[in-house]
């Protein structure tokens, strides 16, 4: 992490570090589901009673957001000078 150290890959670029972070995440996710099945959490809505509801919802929401956003990009994405071209035209 020296400021002048440009050529050496930093710690976060090393595949084994990335892999370790991923494994840690998988472990935490697994643990959270196990805890969810063991403890009796309060529920207010019927939908919350689905085991690990929040886990499913979090995953699905995120994938849904990104997929919908990709579709949105096709609809609203334009070249960077889109409005400049218009300004020139107007001028």
């Amino acid at each position: 992490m020296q400021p002048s150290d440009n050529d050496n890959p930093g710690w976060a670029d090393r595949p084994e570090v990335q892999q370790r972070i991923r494994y840690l995440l998988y472990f935490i996710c697994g643990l959270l589901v196990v805890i969810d099945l063991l403890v009796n959490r309060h529920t207010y809505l019927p939908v919350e009673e689905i085991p690990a509801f929040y886990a499913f919802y979090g995953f699905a929401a995120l994938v849904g957001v990104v997929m919908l956003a990709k579709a949105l990009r096709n609809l609203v994405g334009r070249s960077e000078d889109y409005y400049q071209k218009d300004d020139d035209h107007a001028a």
Partner: protein
Amino acid sequence: MLPDFHPFLPFLIAAILAAFTKGHLRSAIMLLAPVIGGLHLLGLETGTVVEYQLMELTLIPYRVDALSLLFGYIFHIGAFIAVLYSIHLKDTLQHVTGLLYAGSAVGAVFAGDLFTLFVFWEILGLSSAFLIWAARDERSVAIGIRYLVFQILSGVLLMAGALWFWLETGSLEFGEIGLGVSGGLLIFFAFGIKCGFPFLHNWITDGYPAATATGTVFLCCFTTKVAVYAMARGFPGTEALIYIGAFMACYPIFFAVIENDLRKVLAYSMINQLGFMVCGIGIGTALALNGAVAHAFNDVLFKGLLFMSMGAVLYVTGRTKASELGGLYKKMPITATLCIVGAITISAFPLVSAFISKSMVMSALIEEGHGIVWMFMLFASAGVLEHAGIKIPYFAFFAHDQNIPAREAPRNMLAAMSIAAVLCVAIGVFPAMLYSILPYDADYHAYDMTHVLTQLQLLAFAILGVVFLHRSGRYPAEVPSVNLDAEWVYRRLFPRIYHTLVRALAAVGSFLRRPLDRWSLGLMMGLTRTHGPQGTLARTWPTGSMVLWVAVLLLVYLLLDFL
């Protein structure tokens, strides 16, 4: 204890002094203003009211209650952080307008009547526009004007609404207004524009990314939070706000995912967070209102922290686009760490500030039976994690190393970011610090097992979603682009309609002119024939014919005389 004065005063005096001083003296004056103001606030008693009678009007330029105090505190903290962050600049324009801007926000929350509120509302709009113009490039001039148009529109609505309200009720006092009263709707939209209501939000996504690196930090602290304050005081429990808030929380996350300019991502993210506050105000219970204003309080810190970290990146590298950034964690490790603290906070992990405030709004939604809205807000919570929690730090500091020449941010910037980061964590760990100053009476405990577990599940599996998308190659790449938003209507559609209209009118004009031209030409030629130099009527008459006619005339007289 300090003698009592209007809380706007320290900022006004500092702004005037800053205009005529420079160097360390100016820095000291600027840092002292929020400190003196803040110490003054600590000694204030709720219930202080200063009234003036102006003819038939009762003006209350200064009123202290628990709600205004909460916002007063956070504005002083925000002002101190923003001033510290920008203290290295040698730009008098930014320093003076920054102080005036912060001061007018403070003035607005202590305004007890709609007229005083309007005055500070206008200073707020005008002074903040200079923070955009201070970028001093061609682009910022146009953007600053567009930004100001929204601010002025909001001001005009507020003034019109306030006058109408005054005519009907005979009072200008700023309390609960509601939509039922005359002028209520106008005031509602005046506040709504500055809250970033859907389709009225473009001044945020247009203006904030265009301001200077330090200016955006000021901008993100004040205008929208003053609006949230005003909305909470004027329109608590207005049901429409629940749905407006839910919409505000949801739609910007899609734009944030595909936006390339990281400061614009944060601007969209800000609207998303404002959605939670607006929704809480709409629910209107003590718990929900506490949640809304507590979230506004926290948002100043965590959104400020994120804007500061992106400002530092902009200041050091001159770039804010995700497609041009990456790998900066090696050269800016402290900024990167502080940015990650901000990212964790806005994602509302347990033990940071957003967790203890956002969960109040979420709990209130369930308590009041808004299950569907709650599902949408939960969806929005997962979306926040994607764009603000992961995208911002990942693309700026990690991703592909672009080998950008960079160094760590200046020390004053790091200090400002550190204060915000420490507060984000401190409020999360010791929520009682914030809960004890909340204005409404509601008992709430953020840390119970269910809350912590469910929130961790939501966030951990959302991260898992990101990993899944990344590893399967489905995650969208950052590409330089402009994404059309509601602003397209006035930046493209209206000009296009205007130009089409002008062209159409010109065509109709020339079509109508053709017969007219022909007719007028004929008329002219006819007139020339008779009246022209060679025309019959213009011919010079010989003297002889005149004598003849005189003779005829005399003859007629003679005949008449005989008759």
